[in-house]
């Protein structure tokens, strides 16, 4: 069974609510309080007075603005990979594109010119035909 000294020590440290004392000692503390009410109750009463005084000193809850700031920072810190990878991928693609364009440019010039020329050439031929028909 719990002794008077231990009961007093727990009361001094944890206050008047035995159910908030360390779990391992609650049962013994309740048993002591029932068996020795003349010793236990004055100790609990004295502790209760302080508990009530302390209840007026509770901290106000955090603001919603603080919560929002912290969440925004969390998202910023934990998701830097996406923009970084996107930027890196864009840079790689740009480099590859520029390189490929530079290497392929002389080769591509001819077909492009051909297409350009043939397009206008065909138009010119049609014009020529129509001119011939008119004639």
């Amino acid at each position, binding site marked *: 069974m719990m002794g008077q000294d231990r009961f007093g*020590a*727990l009361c*001094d*440290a*944890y*206050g008047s609510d035995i159910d*908030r004392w*360390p*779990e391992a000692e609650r049962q013994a503390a309740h048993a002591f309080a029932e068996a020795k009410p003349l010793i236990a109750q004055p100790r609990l009463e*004295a*502790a*209760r*007075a*302080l*508990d*009530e*005084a*302390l*209840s*007026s*000193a*509770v*901290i*106000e*809850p*955090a*603001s919603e603005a*603080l*919560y929002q*700031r*912290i*969440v925004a*920072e*969390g*998202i910023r*810190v*934990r*998701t830097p*990979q*996406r923009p970084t990878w996107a930027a890196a991928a864009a840079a790689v693609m740009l480099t590859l594109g520029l390189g490929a364009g530079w290497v392929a440019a002389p080769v591509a010039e001819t077909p492009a010119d051909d297409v350009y020329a043939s397009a206008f050439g065909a138009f010119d031929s049609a014009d020529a035909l129509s001119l011939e028909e008119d004639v």
Partner: protein
Amino acid sequence: MLRVISGPPSDRRQSDARAGDRALALSVSRGERAAIAALTRRCLPVVHSIARRMIKDSSEAEDIAQETFVKVWRAIDRYDADRARLETWVARIATNLCLDRLRKRREATLGEDAPERADTAPRADALLAAGGSAARVRAAVQALPDRQRLALELCSFQDRTNIEAAEILGVSVEAVESLLARARRTLRKELLEESRDLIDGLSGAHGGEG
């Protein structure tokens, strides 16, 4: 069909809780917005209370809270659910930041050889300056030595167990009990034995619970 039960219910609950902590931490580390919001919603109350109790200035306390979470976001990959509950881990970070801030402030004020504030009663001038009853109680709590104030905040105001408080403070369970007893002894002396009127007024305000 037989079901194998691997341990007592409390052990299973603890195991489930740690699995939940591990999953949440993993989701946060992957940058999942819902997980980041959930962790903040869950841990901000304890972080804010610790910071506010330890740092008198409210905007500085908010800075500490934000700084705590920046460390959390950066270190979440290293969180080990087998060693501590998520809230305990986060609260420990907040506690260390507060104690560090207070230590640096004292060093800046008194020089590097300044010892941690002695375990003395709240200053009478602080109590007088506080005016009303609730403000006087807050001033008396504020005047406690740092670790006593933290132990009181965790166990008396936040209902943390002595084991959780010990983990957050980085001390033994016996040390937590000693810190609490010393804090309450000081407060009892200052607020009750020397200010009987105060407790009468507060008892009336709280409905005079017997």
